[in-house]
């Protein structure tokens, strides 16, 4: 297992409930120490390209992190898996998205970039953000100039973004994408990210000026790249919710009118009751777990 030999990286981040706090800058919430696992290709030389991975709801239990750490290393790309969950004593958020906010996942990704851009082993102009499901949603939300300005100033930007089956229940109302192309990978039969909705989210980014590439994995359901085979689960599916982030970072769910009031767990409970539904299909199949590796490496090879 390549992750067993990974270097542990610590950096300072924040644990905001919502995006208003992220936009307000570093002083708005208390500092949090976050840990990540860094895999550096052994044979590569010179400042390397790096992918920063935002964890999905399944955390390290998914098996995705090992798959991509190995695949990226073989392609000469380092990978930092940011452990937003474990750093805060959380195992997974699949059964409760209220355990940690998406704003926190975004803050971790941006603070990770701030930290890693100063590491001479890596080329600060060739750092991509990568994530699956909840982590994919964080990727798409992080592709935002307002957030980047608030956390990074003019110091660094992600060079590219890769979002695998990104959760669709939260979005910017008025996207202001940062520079850098986006690859969106969707599962044809995903019932958590219905293909038309996933495509519409990608289209909205493109309409806002982002160069978006989209790959649809034939026959795939949600989390088609996990090590566990496909399975029906009775967990909450929030795909009918539509939480819109306003320019000032405030959030409102469109169908229920619910607003985030500094209580992320309460907000998630509220929208779960208002627009959540039970039932998801997650897991590997019908194609191999590694089905998305080639298009991701092709994309990163072209843009990093």
């Amino acid at each position, binding site marked *: 297992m390549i992750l067993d030999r990974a270097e542990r990286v610590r950096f300072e981040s924040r644990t905001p409930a919502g995006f208003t706090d992220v936009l307000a800058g570093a002083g708005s919430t208390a500092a949090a120490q976050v840990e990540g696992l860094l895999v550096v290709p052994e044979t590569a030389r010179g400042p390397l390209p790096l992918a920063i991975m935002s964890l999905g709801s399944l955390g390290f239990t998914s098996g995705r992190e090992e798959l991509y750490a190995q695949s990226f290393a073989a392609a000469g790309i380092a990978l930092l898996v940011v452990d937003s969950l474990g750093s805060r004593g959380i195992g997974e958020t699949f059964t409760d998205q209220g355990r940690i906010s998406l704003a926190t996942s975004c803050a971790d990704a941006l603070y990770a970039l701030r930290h890693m851009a100063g590491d001479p082993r890596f080329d600060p102009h060739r750092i991509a953000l990568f994530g699956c499901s909840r982590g994919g949603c964080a990727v798409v939300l992080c592709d935002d100039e307002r957030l980047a300005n608030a956390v990074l100033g003019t110091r660094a930007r992600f060079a590219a973004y890769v979002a695998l089956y990104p959760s669709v229940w939260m979005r910017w109302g008025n996207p202001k994408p940062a520079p850098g192309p986006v690859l969106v990978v969707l599962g044809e039969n995903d019932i958590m990210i219905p293909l038309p909705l996933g495509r519409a989210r990608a289209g909205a980014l*493109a309409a806002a000026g982002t160069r978006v590439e989209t790959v649809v994995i034939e026959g795939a359901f949600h989390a088609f790249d996990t090590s566990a085979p496909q399975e029906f689960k009775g967990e909450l599916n929030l795909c009918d919710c539509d939480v819109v982030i306003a320019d000032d970072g405030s959030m409102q769910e469109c169908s229920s009118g619910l607003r985030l009031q500094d209580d992320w767990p309460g907000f998630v409970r509220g929208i779960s009751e208002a627009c959540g539904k039970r039932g998801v299909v997650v897991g590997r199949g019908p194609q191999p777990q590694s089905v998305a590796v080639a298009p991701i490496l092709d994309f990163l090879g072209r843009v990093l």
Partner: protein
Amino acid sequence: MMRRDLAFRALAAVRGDAIVVSRYSAAFEWGAIAPSPLNYFGIGAMGQCSSFALGLALALPHHKIIVLDGDGSLLMNLGSLVTIAATGPQNLVHFVCENGAYEVNGGHPIPGRGRISFAEIARGAGYPHVFEFDDVTAFGAQIANVLALPGPVFGTLKLVAAGELDIEYSETGGGEQRRQFKEALKPLLAAPAR
């Protein structure tokens, strides 16, 4: 700049069962590339295909309606942009084929050729999603996402002037095509709302 036939082939690949409303030179080329009873050709009413399409979009709110407008045509009915944006049909995607010329009747340049931006006009009219495509690869990569967006969506297709067109008005504007279109609409109008 794109070749219109290549852009249309990319659109045809993901068109599904969408109704496509087109006019004049776009209609001739679209009809040849993607024949279907769900094509409606706005021949004889220059500039009006966006208005026809709005009517269809309102009558069939759960069915995708695509407009293939022309730049010269749209200039004759610019007010339709405001009407469409104000009405806000979520199922309408409005493309304008911009080649800078009244192609079908001799290639005379349109007013403001090269200086006006249809995308900016559409944005100002209130279309929530606006695109400009001048590269067929990018268009092909993006078109399925564009069609999935809640409309109204506007897209300018920057085109090179086409070669000689095979113009056959009787096929695109004739009674038989209209009859087929009406027949194809009947089950859609009778279908319960999804």
